[in-house]
């Protein structure tokens, strides 16, 4: 695997950006708006990892909340007995295993089966969890006491974001990334080219599931008190889908373009029209599918090509 000069410069530029972003919490008065920066970073990570799988394969996953919840509970239940970094690793493994199981059962079939299965997954786990906690004694919720503040959570999310971009970039230039693009284009061509279609899809879904579980674990201290209805909140899955679609899933940086504006707008809506959130979310879905099917990044790429195609504009 060779790096071109552009790759190196781009990589350095991204590192610089992350380095600058890492200083955000140190800015005086940052505590106030960190409470909005944290969810934006969280949604960016979730939407990007969602798009790594759902973008090329066109399988709409609604399982984010399920992975997130499993991650949160891994942390909450293990905090007393297991060192923190190990818990993050456990969350990643659990998320990956869960994704592998779900993928094995559904990804051989058409997208409809997958959507339906993931749609209820969070609810299913919540029901089983609640039942287990009710019947095996103990309270439904758990307290998560750590010394972490928003600042620490933000740094962890930022590091995870960097990791997700790195993994996404590596996948894109690997055989697996090429295979998944062929699968998304025409599954029968993929099979006749010798690609193990089911395996490729499952691996990508595992990546996506692991990341969501780790995000859940990182965010758990922020809740302080965790109960199933909160950890497995299905709205999270939908938010992630809409952000990724709004940003566009063709490029790795696409979901970022969706997560930032949507999270900001959503914050405003939730504060001013708390009763209408569901309605507005529905309308947002409809608008995106009808008017920006390729997302903001799709629009930007089209503009860029139009600009370059214009006569008189220099090409370099």
């Amino acid at each position: 695997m060779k790096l071109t000069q552009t790759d190196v410069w781009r990589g350095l530029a991204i590192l610089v950006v992350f380095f600058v972003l890492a200083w955000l919490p140190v800015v005086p008065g940052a505590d106030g708006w960190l409470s909005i920066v944290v969810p934006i970073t969280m949604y960016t990570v979730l939407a990007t990892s969602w798009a790594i799988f759902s973008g090329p394969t066109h399988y709409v996953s609604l399982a984010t909340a399920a992975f997130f919840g499993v991650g949160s509970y891994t942390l909450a239940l293990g905090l007393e007995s297991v060192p923190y970094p190990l818990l993050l690793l456990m969350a990643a493994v659990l998320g990956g295993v869960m994704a592998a199981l779900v993928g094995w059962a559904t990804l051989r079939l058409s997208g409809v089966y997958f959507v339906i299965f993931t749609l209820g997954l969070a609810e299913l786990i919540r029901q089983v969890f609640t039942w287990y906690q009710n019947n095996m004694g103990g309270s439904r919720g758990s307290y998560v006491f750590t010394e972490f503040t928003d600042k620490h959570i933000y740094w962890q999310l930022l590091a995870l974001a960097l990791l997700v971009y790195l993994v996404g970039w590596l996948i894109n230039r690997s055989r697996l990334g090429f295979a998944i693009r062929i699968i998304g284009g025409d599954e029968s061509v993929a099979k006749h080219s010798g690609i193990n279609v089911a395996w490729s899809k499952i691996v990508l879904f595992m990546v996506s599931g692991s990341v969501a579980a780790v995000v859940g674990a990182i965010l758990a201290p922020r809740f302080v008190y965790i109960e199933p209805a909160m950890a497995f909140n299905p709205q999270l899955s939908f938010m992630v889908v809409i952000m990724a679609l709004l940003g566009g899933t063709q490029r790795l940086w696409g979901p970022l373009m969706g997560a930032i504006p949507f999270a900001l707008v959503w914050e405003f809506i939730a504060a001013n029209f708390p009763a209408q959130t569901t309605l507005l979310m529905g309308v947002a879905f409809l608008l995106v599918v009808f008017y920006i099917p390729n997302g903001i990044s799709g629009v930007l790429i089209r503009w860029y090509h139009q600009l370059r195609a214009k006569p008189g504009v220099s090409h370099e």
Partner: protein
Amino acid sequence: MQILITGIFLGGVYAIIAVGLSLQYGVSRIMNLAVGEMLVAGAFAAFWFSTAQSLNPYLSLLVVIPVAFCANWLIYRYLLLPLVRRAKTRGQLEVDSILVTFGLSFTLVGIFLWAFGGQFFNYSFLSVPVEIFDARYGQNRVLAFAIAFVVCAALWIWLNHTRSGLSMRAISVDTRAASLVAIDVEKSSNFAFALGGAIAATGGMVLSTFLTFDASIGIVFTLKALVIVIMGGVGDIRGAIVAALVLGITETIVARLIDPGLTLAAAYVLFLLILLFRPQGLFGRAQT
């Protein structure tokens, strides 16, 4: 025995919703994830008739059926048909229709919340017991089952013994071939979608006579209806009815013997078994 009969009664009502969805998916090729909201709309109409107007809730069907039919006709014509036309591939349409019907589902839930608020609704109708095989059942449930039977039978007869029903079945087998034999596919799909929506709303109305509901419960029924449709085999009305009864009985058994909080989990286990062993549905032929 009592569990079995209760389960069959419940399954009958599920069957109404599932055949509605099956019609929409089989003929119109739209996996309608907003079908549960049609059901909730029917339930609210019945609630309003029964409490605000002190009328028999079944009278609301006179309004629910035509209104739901028109609303679904419009939804297909103006929201979904553009997607059908724009989609280059079946997969593209699948993704788009899933997203749009999700959007629609949220929008409708939002409207219900706005109009009725977030509390639970129920009203009392015919909650007098009737005795069957030495056990007591609510008359409302018995009547609901009877309605379900009538709806499913009528649909069955229409699809299998009339000319327009035949063209519906033709479309569900092969859209392109159907258009070659001079079936107006767009018009028929639109009709099937509208009818499916009206049937689902009827199911909601019937369900409301014995079940407490709220504005956001639709998604639960969407899920159950989807599981039933897939279990029964896509576009297969007979399969959907059998699958609905299987789900109704399974849920009742789980609720009575284990925990009422696990009914969805029960539906899921069924779904998983189907996915693993018979993805083509109970009566479906192996995929070719």
